[in-house]
């Protein structure tokens, strides 16, 4: 049974108006993701991709259609079940500098999900090991968000999300706000952790190159509708839908063509 199963899913911020005027933010979505999969959702601004990912983790309500996450129907969860589900699915945000309370130390911020969902205060050793796992030193626990760079903060965000051992990780444009030179780092980290921890990952991005590099399957969204899905390589290299072709062509036009290189650079 797929871990995420979406059938006939419609969404609008104003559902009653949407039903009358047929103006949905997300329209008739159907897709599924098996456990351990790595799904990419691509679309331009206004496509609804950020909305969709928030529906999947319960930050936005589900009123129409059948959305099953980890076997539970998202529309019929009571508050306790929702809390239970939050332990299984976590989200990392686009702008790491805005994802942390500026007044809280890093250690305190990272401990929040455990405090809230596991109702316990994690010891410093546990927090330190969370940071080390994402490649940061333990003494970062005592620093404040403004002391860290964007790339470092995004790693902290990943550490925070994984602190409650979720089985699904959602990432909303995780590299878009980062400098070019550290984007690869964040992506690699997500991919490595996925293998180590057997995670299922959904990655939203407007950047086709990013999605193309790490994901196995892909969904192309346009104006709230899925125009194409499939295996990432197939869809990006042999797009069927006119819109996907347009996207791929635009991305290719400004891509840096370069063959596999033997030259090592700093890492």
């Amino acid at each position, binding site marked *: 049974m797929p871990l995420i199963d979406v059938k006939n899913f419609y969404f609008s911020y104003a559902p009653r108006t949407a039903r009358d005027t047929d103006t949905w933010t997300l329209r008739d979505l159907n897709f599924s993701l098996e456990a351990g999969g790595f799904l990419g959702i691509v679309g*331009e601004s206004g496509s609804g991709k950020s909305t969709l990912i928030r529906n999947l983790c319960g930050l936005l309500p589900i009123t129409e259609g059948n959305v099953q996450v980890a076997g539970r129907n998202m529309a019929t969860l009571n508050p306790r079940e929702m809390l239970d589900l939050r332990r299984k699915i976590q989200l990392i945000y686009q702008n790491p500098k805005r994802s942390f309370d500026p007044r809280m130390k890093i250690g305190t911020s990272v401990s929040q999900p455990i405090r809230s969902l596991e109702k316990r205060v994690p010891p410093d050793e546990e927090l330190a090991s969370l940071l080390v796992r994402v490649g940061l030193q333990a003494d970062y626990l005592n620093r404040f968000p403004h002391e860290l*760079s964007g790339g470092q903060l995004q790693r902290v965000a990943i550490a925070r999300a994984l602190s409650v051992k979720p089985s699904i990780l959602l990432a909303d444009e995780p590299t878009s706000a980062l*400098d070019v030179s550290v984007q690869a780092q964040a992506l690699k980290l997500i991919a490595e952790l996925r293998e180590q921890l057997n995670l299922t990952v959904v990655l939203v991005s*407007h950047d086709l190159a990013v999605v*193309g*590099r790490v994901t196995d399957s892909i969904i192309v969204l346009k104006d709230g509708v899925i125009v194409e899905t499939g295996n990432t390589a197939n869809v990006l290299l042999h797009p069927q839908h006119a819109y996907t072709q347009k996207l791929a062509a635009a991305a290719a*036009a400004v*891509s840096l*063509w370069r063959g596999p290189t033997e030259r090592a650079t700093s890492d």
Partner: protein
Amino acid sequence: MLTIQNLHVTIAGHSVAKVESLEISKGQRIGLVGESGSGKSMIVMSILGLQPKSAKVTGSIKFNGVELIGLPEKKLADIRGGLIGLVPQDPTKSLNPTMRIGRQIAEAVSLHSIDGKKTVNRRVRELIDNVRLPDPDRIIRSYPHQLSGGQQQRVLIAMAIACDPMLLIADEATTALDVTVQGEILKLLLALSKELEMGLIFVSHDLGVVRFVCQNVAVIYGGQIVEFGPVDSVIDHPAHRYSDALITANIAFPENEADVARDLSELRSIKGSVPAIGEFPDGCRFRNRCGFAVTACRLFVPLQQVDNGHLHRCCNPISYTGKSDATH
């Protein structure tokens, strides 16, 4: 047309931008590429005299023989828009939300002329056509929020070229746009530059975008040009380690099945992060993050020529005759 010599911008005693020499001739398109904090915007703002008040600018920026540094504000204002146009980054922040588009473009037109209303209106329509926006009547009557991001950016370009400037500066002009829209704006800028014989300085963090539009590119790090040359030469055969690192760190769109299947360990980042102002090392500004720094890197490095028109300032550059030099 534009000659920059020994430009030095400092803030609170710290060097923010330092350009020994940079020239743009008529109709030439140059890209300034760098990450955030590289100083590329500071260089470009200094040309227009729009640098922050706390910044001190020394050196020479000559535009058609006229020295821009130290020019009184009134004369600078004449040049801005009139001879040098600026296309800013975010259309939502650069257009007045309470004014109709037609009026905003008309304002840009009348800024440097005293033409009558009829002439101005004719020019507004002409500009809307130049930037390939259909249905000029609707555009003129619209408010900014009624247009899409791409259309807004075209309006900004129209306003920037309103007075037929000789040089256009585009500061991250496509960064806020969707990729499909970006392509169209880039094609527009390219076409305009060719049609109007307008020089173009394109500032961006994206080398791929710069390759699409520009003939030459300057790679900026720590406020200095670390490499300069024809765009294909710099991208295909970078000499400076930073340029190479930047190119390798770029996540490229896959060309074929092999690309997609490439191992993730090939994805490269640059270790560390861009230092804050005043925290750059002396000598080569990149040496603390470079995997190939040698002792010579501790000293100041001037730009050296590699090939015709291709310069760099690396002490341990990549050579293309064989394997790369020994690492430190």
